[in-house]
Every structure is written in structure tokens, then in C-alpha cells.
């Protein structure tokens, strides 16, 4: 019996198969994860993501605090109200404590961190905040619903006021805006266009129902995973964790090395790693024959003693075959071998990203 979001009874009533996720009872699917996945790629589907942790950062030194705390630099979103920034939060050993999004709210910042890392993140963020004129406020009063797919924005607008529809029209990709107590962002975890909407708990059930009524499909965690993996997006605990450097998790691009004088936690370690030459990298794997690649399967690279490991694997509903992300020796070529249930199977190596805008990138 775990935590429940405000939509728990709704999920039950709609036939959700409820499972534990990071201490929360969440819907895995509502019948068929494959159908839910296709609905998102072809029309519109929605996810209850209220289990995620929202932390608002306010105060005179909010910016300086975040510039120390995060490996990416919030200066990058200066003067862009509502703009989002994806960043790693590192420990002093250069490992990833969490990945998160931070929004510039013009005078303050909103961060969204993972559910499974909540206690660890809050303890860490509070410990660093001690030295700054900054206040952290956890927003457990907010629910969050992600509506994703080519029809997501159009359908969502139909359920909202003229004012909110106009706000949505004004949003660039990776930007959010406030409307009353709602915060609407054009972000997502599926590779499709769409919105992630934070709203008071008390309004979540009615909004969810309105979206159902307008034709948005209800989707669970299983579809969420196949969608994000097709989009080449990391999942904390798989592609990275406290002991994994961002440089081997396809997060090098999120590190703001400039300005060189910005000291962020973990900088020294990953800077040295970069200087010495990074030994591993995160790649995509594709298996065009039958079978499903799975996390923890071992990867062998010809001519290399070091082995790699699959960090996430699944069947790709949009492609019709199996895909994976794997941390492998940096010298890997175009193919490698994966130990699948005792058999060595040859797979193709690609960049981490398989489907974009509903189409294969392969």
C-alpha cells in the first residue's frame, strides 16, 4: 500500500492495473500498453504524473544556489520567462543524484525532480541551501497531468478557458506559463508535442474527466516507458544513478562548462574525466529479429576486453522490433553482441534515439 495521487480512484474506476512505482500506487496500463502507446503517437494520450516532486526555489540567492547545485547553468534561461532547462544534479564524486527540469519563473525558479529520488533529492537540496539566502518549497498541493501526441494541444485547449487556450498558443517548445494556480508547460517525456500541466489537487479529477470526454486516451506507466525509450530519453535509475557520470549517460550536452569560473558540485571530477578521455558512452541498440532486449543483459564488443550493459530495453511498438540503451566501451563500432537468455545475438549500434515525430530515425 503506497502513496496515492488524487486520481487513484479514477484510475481504478477506469480499469487501471495498479502497481507500485517508487512507493506510489500507479496505473501500469488500462488494458493494453501497446494500444496506449499508439494512441500517443497517432492522436493524444495522457498520464497522471502527480507522483513527481515539484520544488519551488525562491529568494535573493536563488540563482546563485542553482548555479552551484546544477551541472547545467540557469543563466542559459535568463530573460526567457517560463523557459525550461534540463539538467543533471551531481554529487561531489561526479555521479548523478537526479535529472530534472528547472523553469525560469522571473524572480524565482520551479524544479521538477523524480518521484523515486524524492527523499534523497530534498535532503541534498536542503543541505546545500543552508549557505544561501534561499527558500525551498515542496508543492505537494499540485497534481500533474501530461497530455501528449499530435492532437494533444488542440484537444486540451478545447477543455479550457479562452485565456488558458491563448496561454498555450503562446508557448514555445520547452516553455511554460502560469494561469491562476495552474502552470502549463510545452514539455514531455514521449518525443511528441504536448503539455505537462500542474494544477491544484482539487481540480485534477474534473480536468482528467474533461480530457477523457474530449477523446484523450488514458495511458499508464508501461506506455510511458516504451514512448520515452523510443525517444531516446533517460530514466533515472537505469541510464544513470549516483555512481554514474553524466558523461557516460548521454548527458554531456547538458553540462555547461562555460563560464569556466562557475563552480558547480561535481565539476572537478567530470572535468578530469573529460580531460583524460571518457571511456564509455551510452548508445542505442536495435534488434531487427525476434526477441526483446532487456536491462542488465551483457554487451560484448569485438576486440575489446571491457563489456557493456543494457541500461533499458523494450519492444518498440512504433518500430515493431526491440530497441535498447546501453552503456558500452567508447570504441564500439557498428555492431555488438548481446547475451540474450544464454544466446549471443548480434545487434546494431545507433545513436540513442529511435523515433521522432512518429517516424523512425533509423
Amino acid at each position, binding site marked *: 500500500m503506497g502513496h496515492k495521487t488524487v486520481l487513484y480512484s479514477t484510475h481504478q474506476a477506469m480499469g487501471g492495473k495498479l502497481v507500485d512505482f517508487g512507493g506510489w500506487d500507479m496505473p501500469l496500463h488500462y488494458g*493494453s*500498453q*501497446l494500444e496506449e502507446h499508439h494512441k500517443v503517437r497517432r492522436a493524444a494520450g495522457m498520464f497522471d504524473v502527480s507522483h513527481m516532486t515539484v520544488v519551488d526555489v525562491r529568494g535573493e540567492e536563488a540563482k546563485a544556489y542553482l548555479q552551484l547545485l546544477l551541472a547545467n547553468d540557469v543563466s542559459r534561461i535568463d530573460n526567457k520567462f517560463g523557459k525550461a532547462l534540463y539538467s543533471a544534479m551531481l554529487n561531489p564524486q561526479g555521479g548523478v543524484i537526479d535529472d530534472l527540469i528547472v523553469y525560469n519563473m522571473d524572480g524565482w525558479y520551479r524544479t521538477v525532480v523524480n518521484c523515486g529520488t524524492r527523499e534523497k533529492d530534498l535532503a541534498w537540496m536542503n543541505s546545500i541551501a543552508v549557505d544561501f539566502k534561499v527558500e525551498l518549497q515542496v508543492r505537494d498541493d499540485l497534481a500533474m497531468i501530461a497530455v501528449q501526441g499530435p492532437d494533444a494541444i488542440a484537444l486540451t485547449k478545447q477543455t479550457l478557458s479562452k485565456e488558458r487556450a491563448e496561454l498555450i498558443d503562446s508557448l514555445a517548445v520547452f516553455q511554460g506559463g502560469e494561469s491562476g494556480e495552474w502552470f502549463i508547460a510545452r514539455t514531455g517525456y514521449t518525443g511528441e508535442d504536448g503539455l505537462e500541466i500542474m494544477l491544484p489537487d482539487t481540480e485534477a479529477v474534473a480536468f482528467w474527466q474533461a480530457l477523457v470526454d474530449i477523446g484523450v486516451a488514458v495511458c499508464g506507466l*508501461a506506455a510511458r516507458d*516504451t514512448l520515452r525509450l523510443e525517444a531516446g530519453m533517460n530514466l533515472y535509475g537505469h541510464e544513470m544513478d549516483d555512481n554514474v557520470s553524466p558523461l557516460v549517460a548521454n548527458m554531456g550536452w547538458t553540462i555547461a562548462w562555460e563560464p569556466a569560473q562557475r563552480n558547480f558540485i561535481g565539476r572537478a571530477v567530470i572535468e578530469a574525466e573529460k580531460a583524460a578521455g571518457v571511456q564509455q558512452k551510452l548508445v542505442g541498440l536495435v534488434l531487427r529479429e*525476434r*526477441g*526483446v532486449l532487456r536491462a542488465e543483459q551483457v554487451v560484448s564488443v569485438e576486440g575489446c576486453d571491457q563489456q557493456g550493459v543494457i541500461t533499458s530495453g*523494450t519492444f518498440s511498438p512504433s518500430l515493431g522490433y526491440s530497441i535498447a540503451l546501453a552503456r558500452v566501451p567508447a570504441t564500439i563500432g557498428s555492431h555488438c553482441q548481446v547475451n540474450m*537468455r544464454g544466446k549471443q545475438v548480434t545487434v546494431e549500434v545507433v545513436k540513442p534515439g529511435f523515433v521522432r515525430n512518429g517516424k523512425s530515425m533509423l
Partner: protein
Amino acid sequence: MSEIRKELKYLSSHEWARLEEDGTVTIGITDHAQEALGDVVFVEVPEVGSTVNVGEEAGVVESVKAASDIYSLVSGEVIEVNELLQDAPETVNSSPYDDGWFFRVRPDDLDELENALDADDYRSAIEDEE
């Protein structure tokens, strides 16, 4: 509660067997199994003409979530396999006892079916799981 058919025999590993009029035995997986697996994406069945043995892996059913070995309830020669499952593996989910059958065996010894569970025993076996 998942569907369990009275006339079939079962293994606790969630396979079912149906004794056909011509004395052959059809094998598949139960409603409980397909529900637990989730969407099936690949099915591996034995080759026609090959031999299957009770207690040995005869095939594999793979869902997005997990891969699971399939066991036969009888030993004998495989005389037919369900080709439909190659192109439409989701049939296992939608029709586990009818269109979603896996393979058919000419049994060496029908007495082997006596060792399998009947519907009531299978129901008891899975009651704890459901």
C-alpha cells in the same frame, strides 16, 4: 478472477491442454498467464515434426514485460503449430483458449495428462496470486 475452462487440464506454470476428438492434444497458455504477461509481442513454438517432452521447455512467449518458457503437458511429436501467432501475437491476449493456441501434439502416452491439474486444482493454485 481470470477465466478457467472446466474441460481443460493445466500446469501450475499456466499452460493448458485440450484433448481433441482425434486423440491429439492442443497446448496454450491460460487467461491468468496472458493477463500477467501483458501484451504479447513474440511467440516461439517448436518445429513441426520435432519432439516435445513433459517437463522440458517447448517454446517461449515474450511480452513487452518479460519472456516466459512454455512447457508441454504431454510428450510426443509436434504435428501442427499456430502460424497466426507469428503475425498476430496479440491473439494470445485476446483469445488464450481458442484462437491463441500454441501447438498440437500427437501424444505418446495420454496417461501423462492424468498428472496435470484439473480446473478446480488450477483455480486453487492461482487463487493466491489473483
